[in-house]
């Protein structure tokens, strides 16, 4: 069937149409990938708010040089839980949430390869999260940083550390099971007319993310198993007094945790690659470059981990190797950034919240990327390791990158998921407050780090006061900025204007079914006729020696990703 012409046919309610979803379905073990996707997205957002609250508690302590808000021990738990929650309960699973919702729709499948396993993967998350947060109430929360280096992590509070380890083992397993599903689904369940070069870039991104997750997360499990033996059974894997080596922990930990940061950004690179062409009304520039650079980042991401360990006493030759690989990984990322910019250039921009957040993403992520390349240089890193310069870098790439990407995704796919349009005015207010807040919070941290302010301390030298004060104000602004978003989303979900199937006039398959999609996704499985980004392609195709192509018909104009060029 012709894609654009399916509108009349594809979502006609048939007499045997299944009943619409009840709200109760979302609180149960349901195997529909769309339900699971929403469960992921809502749950992770709740954890974002909790982790954000902890961040603001941290920033409140840091408003003044003295320890005057919480005790140092509680402070340690706050920054430990803040990071652990944001990484393992917000960004990593939020990527899985988008993947769950979108992948089957984008490839024309009715569900994931393993729907029950999919639901199991989700349901591991709430208990793990509740366990982690309950540690605060139990009075013994993990407090050795989210990196939990021994011997420190083995010295303070067995219960808290044990909770942290169990929670991470659960969340890591959830991540692996999700990745398994995405990997198999993307490779095996595409509609027959969709070769790998016709699938949307979000799917390429999730392929790269899933491969990385499957290879690296299990090594974290190994590290945590050894750590728990040291914690509970008296072994000394990481304890020098017993012959062990704490640096081995660091190697095992970072072997996962470095790829983790790519796991946290690649899905949103993919989302941005969808959002920018649609709202610029232009084909994506450099489809293959973006697709293959995702794979390159995935592969290179496995051989850069020790750049987190430049000051751990590893030999010089090893530091050189990791410095070089870390600098190289900026190249595929840069290729993406240039491709996105070239996509925007000359496009007919629809400056809605989705595109604003996407553009904010590109700009802020580049700043984070630049500080990253600086950190890759060993001499520089030796100077700023464990200072606020690193905190600045990570928050520019994680907040400015992943979080802005997530918000962009929320605004862009909100009509598809909920069947309603979100309020654009408040979306723009949200964007303005966020972009100002994030820069106010994290920009001063570059200077703080260069001046020598240490990470993970509640008490600092008074010379750092003014910049810290600014940063704290920014953090409060970020807290305030979430309210327009939350109210907008809730109100619009209930009362917003109804969305059509394809409010953005997009060409990827998720827009070719109703909003929200019927339970089985498509009434009849779609056959591709256009490529995913063939906007306005009819007049611009030079090479028309493709069989069956017809320049004057946009649907048969055989753009670079068109199915007419596919070699199935």
């Amino acid at each position: 069937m012709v894609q654009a012409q399916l509108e009349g046919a594809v979502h006609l309610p048939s007499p045997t149409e299944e009943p619409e979803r009840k709200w109760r379905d979302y609180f149960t073990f349901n195997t529909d990938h769309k339900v699971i996707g929403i469960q992921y997205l809502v749950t992770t957002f709740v954890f974002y708010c909790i982790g954000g609250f902890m961040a603001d508690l941290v920033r409140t302590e840091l408003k003044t040089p003295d320890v005057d808000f919480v005790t140092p021990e509680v402070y340690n738990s706050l920054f430990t839980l803040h990071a652990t929650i944001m990484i393992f309960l917000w960004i990593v699973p939020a990527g899985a949430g988008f993947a769950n919702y979108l992948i089957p729709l984008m490839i024309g499948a009715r569900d994931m390869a393993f729907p029950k396993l999919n639901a199991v993967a989700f349901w591991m998350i709430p208990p793990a999260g509740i366990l982690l947060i309950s540690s605060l109430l139990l009075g013994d929360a993990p407090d050795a940083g989210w990196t939990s280096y021994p011997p420190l992590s083995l010295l303070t509070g067995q219960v808290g550390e044990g909770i942290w380890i169990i929670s991470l083992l659960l969340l890591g397993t959830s991540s692996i099971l999700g990745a398994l599903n995405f990997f198999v689904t993307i490779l095996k369940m595409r509609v027959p007319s969709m070769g790998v070069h016709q699938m949307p870039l979000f799917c390429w991104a999730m392929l790269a993310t899933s491969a990385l997750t499957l290879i690296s997360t299990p090594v974290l499990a190994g590290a945590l198993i050894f750590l728990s033996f040291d914690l509970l059974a008296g072994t000394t894997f990481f304890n020098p007094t017993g012959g062990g080596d704490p640096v081995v922990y660091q190697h095992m930990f970072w072997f996962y945790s470095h790829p983790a940061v790519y796991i946290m950004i690649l899905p949103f690179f993919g989302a941005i690659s969808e959002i920018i062409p649609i709202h610029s009304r232009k084909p994506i520039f450099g489809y293959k470059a973006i697709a293959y650079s995702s794979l390159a980042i995935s592969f290179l991401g496995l051989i850069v981990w020790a750049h987190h360990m430049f000051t751990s006493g590893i030999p010089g030759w090893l530091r050189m190797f990791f410095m070089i690989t870390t600098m190289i990984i900026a190249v595929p990322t840069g290729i993406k950034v240039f491709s996105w910019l070239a996509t925007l250039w000359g496009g007919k921009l629809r400056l809605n919240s989705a595109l604003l957040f996407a553009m904010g993403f590109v700009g802020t992520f580049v700043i984070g990327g630049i500080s990253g390349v600086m950190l890759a240089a060993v001499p520089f890193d030796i100077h700023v390791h464990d200072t606020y310069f690193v905190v600045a870098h990570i928050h520019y790439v994680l907040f400015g990158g992943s979080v802005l990407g997530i918000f962009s995704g929320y605004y862009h796919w909100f009509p598809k998921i909920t069947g309603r349009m979100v309020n654009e005015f408040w979306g723009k207010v949200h964007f303005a407050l966020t972009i100002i807040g994030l820069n106010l919070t994290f920009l001063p941290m570059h200077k703080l780090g260069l001046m020598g302010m240490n990470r993970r301390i509640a008490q600092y030298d008074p010379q750092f006061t003014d910049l810290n004060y600014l940063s704290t104000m920014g953090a409060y602004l970020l807290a305030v900025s979430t309210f327009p978003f939350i109210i907008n989303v809730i109100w619009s979900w209930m009362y917003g204007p109804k969305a059509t199937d394809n409010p953005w006039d997009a060409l990827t398959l998720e827009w070719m079914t109703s909003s929200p999609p019927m339970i089985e996704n498509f009434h009849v499985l779609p056959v591709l006729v256009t490529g995913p980004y063939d906007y306005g392609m009819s007049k611009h195709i030079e090479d028309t020696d493709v069989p069956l192509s017809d320049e004057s018909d946009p649907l048969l104009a055989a753009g670079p990703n068109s199915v007419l060029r596919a070699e199935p």
Partner: protein
Amino acid sequence: MQSQTIDPSKTENHHHGASVEAHHEEHPDHRMFGMVIFLLAEGMIFVGMFGAYLAFRATLPSWPPVGTPELELLIPSINTTILISSSFVIHNADTAIKKNDVRGMQLWFAITAVMGIIFLGGQIYEYSNLEFGLTTNLFASSFYVLTGFHGLHVFIGVSAILGVLWRSRTPGRYSDHKHFGIEAAELYWHFVDVIWIVLFGLLYIL
């Protein structure tokens, strides 16, 4: 958009039953592929642990640490032989079910399970006769955690084999065209075997 309509009843998809109703019969089975990917991930846990073991071995002044009793090789070698042979045995079960021979499959699976249980028994016997404990030194800790983690996987494998055996009591449950459980258990068993070979090499030979 131009309105060119195509008559749905004349399209390929319609004839191949791509509609919701027709969907329920045809469904390629991706479970074996999923199993392979799962085992790759599971293998990576061991790879991480092996890496750590090699790092310990490389950085300590003497390995095993001074005073560690020499490991005896007889029982572990017998165990290794049993485990490797059991992989061939379980493969016979796969050949049998592909010829629709359920009884044959059950026989070979039962023998494999017995061999697995003997392996685990051998491990327990070895553990009880060892002169070092979990916390004696770094080599000892590594030894117990690595072999213990592997032993856990053998136990899971034996359970899977017994589980499949139990389910095979239902006639028609497994046949020459429906035998995912058998193939999955077999693949898992081969995985456990390969991990052991590497483990044996690292801990006993090197």
